[in-house]
């Protein structure tokens, strides 16, 4: 028999209560895994979208409006001449209602720009030239709009033809309606305007050097702000809001978990008052009793955490397979997140056990002789 056996037996004593507490923690941790995983997935999907496009730096003017604010297309030329900038690609991203969908991402890209290169044709072809009345649809966008190649699609008041379905390698890319920049500028009244510039830096720059390059771009271009790809979303107020929301909800779940474990452990201490006194009477040190209670609650946290990670991952996977959501969620269920969630659960367990442990350490061993 080891000390761990004693801890385990403590939890085994009331299997129903222990199980209910575990379910409580597991649900809380499942919420942490699902919410944080999904919100991180958003950021990563943007980052992977950028990576898929081969973009190192994004120049945009992310205000608080729905889409980045437009600026002069000539800004691109000013950026292109900055040393260490290998290539640039002008983009106009818009959010607009298309046919019976009330909100779609429209991504209009400089004709011949590098941001077209990552698009892999799944069906059909790419537009033939910059002004062909044609779009290609990301796979998810095609599914949402119920379009296939050859169908017409109404963009603003212009009818265009879907000439291809593409896999952009990332959630954002696959949810977009993609067309040539000059065509969209013309049909949307945004001639000579863009709102994003994808910048490819010369190879071999590390993250600090990329940041320095961003600073140089920002110094020269007052209209927009350059940020390393992916970070621009991570730093946006909207993403911070989502992140805060997911962590806030998780915190709530964790607090419920803390209260659940604390309740269980307090009940344990009250119920096992005489047992604890006996242990003290036969020579156990108070620190050992404290350790016993803390380990029990930590074990509850650990088991609840493992259960929660399993439920959270399974839940997200089930959600992903729903036809309505398929392809829209790209959660980040990384081992790091799972380890973090289990760690949180263990910390929750330990924190919850502190008060019960303190209570148990204050018991008088002489009570062992009563009853």
């Amino acid at each position, binding site marked *: *028999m*080891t*000390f761990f*056996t*004693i801890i385990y*037996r*403590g939890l*085994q*004593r009331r299997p129903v209560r222990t199980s209910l507490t575990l379910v409580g923690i597991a649900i809380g941790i499942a919420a942490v895994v699902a919410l944080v995983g999904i919100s991180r997935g958003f950021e990563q999907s943007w980052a992977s979208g950028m990576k898929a496009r081969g973009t190192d730096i994004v120049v945009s003017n992310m205000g608080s409006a729905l889409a980045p604010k437009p600026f002069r297309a000539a800004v691109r030329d000013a950026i292109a001449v900055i040393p260490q900038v290998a290539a640039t690609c002008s983009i106009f991203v818009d959010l607009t209602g298309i046919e019976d969908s009330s909100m779609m991402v429209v991504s209009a890209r400089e004709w011949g720009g590098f941001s077209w290169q990552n698009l892999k044709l799944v069906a059909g072809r790419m537009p033939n030239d910059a002004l062909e009345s044609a779009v290609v649809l990301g796979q998810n966008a095609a599914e949402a709009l119920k379009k296939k190649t050859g169908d017409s699609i109404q963009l603003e008041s212009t009818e265009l033809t879907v000439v291809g379905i593409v896999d952009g390698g990332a959630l954002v890319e696959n949810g977009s309606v993609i067309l040539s920049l000059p065509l969209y500028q013309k049909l949307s009244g945004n001639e000579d305007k863009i709102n994003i510039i994808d910048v490819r830096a010369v190879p071999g720059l590390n993250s600090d050097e990329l940041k320095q390059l961003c600073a140089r771009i920002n110094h020269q271009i007052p209209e927009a702000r350059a940020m390393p790809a992916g970070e621009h979303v991570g730093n946006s107020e909207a993403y911070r809001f989502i992140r805060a929301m997911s962590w806030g909800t998780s915190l709530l779940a964790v607090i419920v978990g803390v209260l659940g474990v604390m309740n269980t452990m307090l009940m344990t201490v009250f119920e096992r008052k*005489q*047992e604890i006194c*006996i*242990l*003290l*009477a*036969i*020579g*156990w*040190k*108070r620190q*050992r009793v404290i350790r016993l209670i803390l380990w029990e609650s930590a074990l509850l946290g650990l088991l609840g955490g493992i259960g929660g990670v399993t439920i959270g991952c399974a839940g997200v996977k089930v959600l992903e397979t729903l036809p309505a959501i398929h392809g829209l969620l790209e959660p980040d269920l990384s081992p790091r997140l799972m380890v973090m969630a289990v760690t949180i659960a263990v910390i929750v367990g330990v924190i919850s056990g502190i008060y019960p442990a303190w209570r148990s350490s204050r018991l*008088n*061993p*002489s009570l*062992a*002789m009563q*009853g």
Partner: protein
Amino acid sequence: MRYVFEANGLCKDFDDGRVRALRGVNFRIVQGEFLAIMGPSGCGKTTLLQLLGALDLPTSGSLLYRGASLPALPDPALYRAREIGMVFQAFHLLPTFTAVENVQLPMFETERSASERLKHAVQLLKSVGLEHRLNHFPAMLSGGERQRVAIARSLANNPSVLLADEPTGNLDSKNAHHILDLIIRLKRERQMTLVLVTHDPSIALLASRTIRMIDGQIATDPSAPISP
């Protein structure tokens, strides 16, 4: 050091002095002695045993263990773990642990490894005649067997003093006789000092000395023998 325990003017109050359990108790116990403490319920026998086991602190007076003040011990748990074995009237075994596991519980405060703990616990249970009940939970044992397990547990760390609080109080006369024989045999074999609280005069007759208590005071105390 001549005396194992030495008490002078020992007092213990409860409930802010409203209950006076011990009122100036003086006694000495020598090494290897079998001391019986007798008296009616509420006379302070168990309180005295608690103070000897450092389970509680006296309100006033002095209580020495081998010359050192018990209330001033820096680590009373260590004293209980190393020096004292305790046997209770209600056995106080932990219900979720088997006999052999219950016996191992006090050994967690020693340097013994898990395998050494198990080996020692098995030996102890053999010595109390329970080698066939090692993996039984307390609920599966008779009253006498439970008390044997409790005795084996009290010996886990080879104490020099055994404190027993009405160890036969919950047993029928046959079992009580066996348990008492066992305790006395083990005391002799291990050369322990035994302090046994009882209100059974027949048990007290077996002791080398009997203290009688009334209302928190010692009514009679034959002088301590020179040798056990």
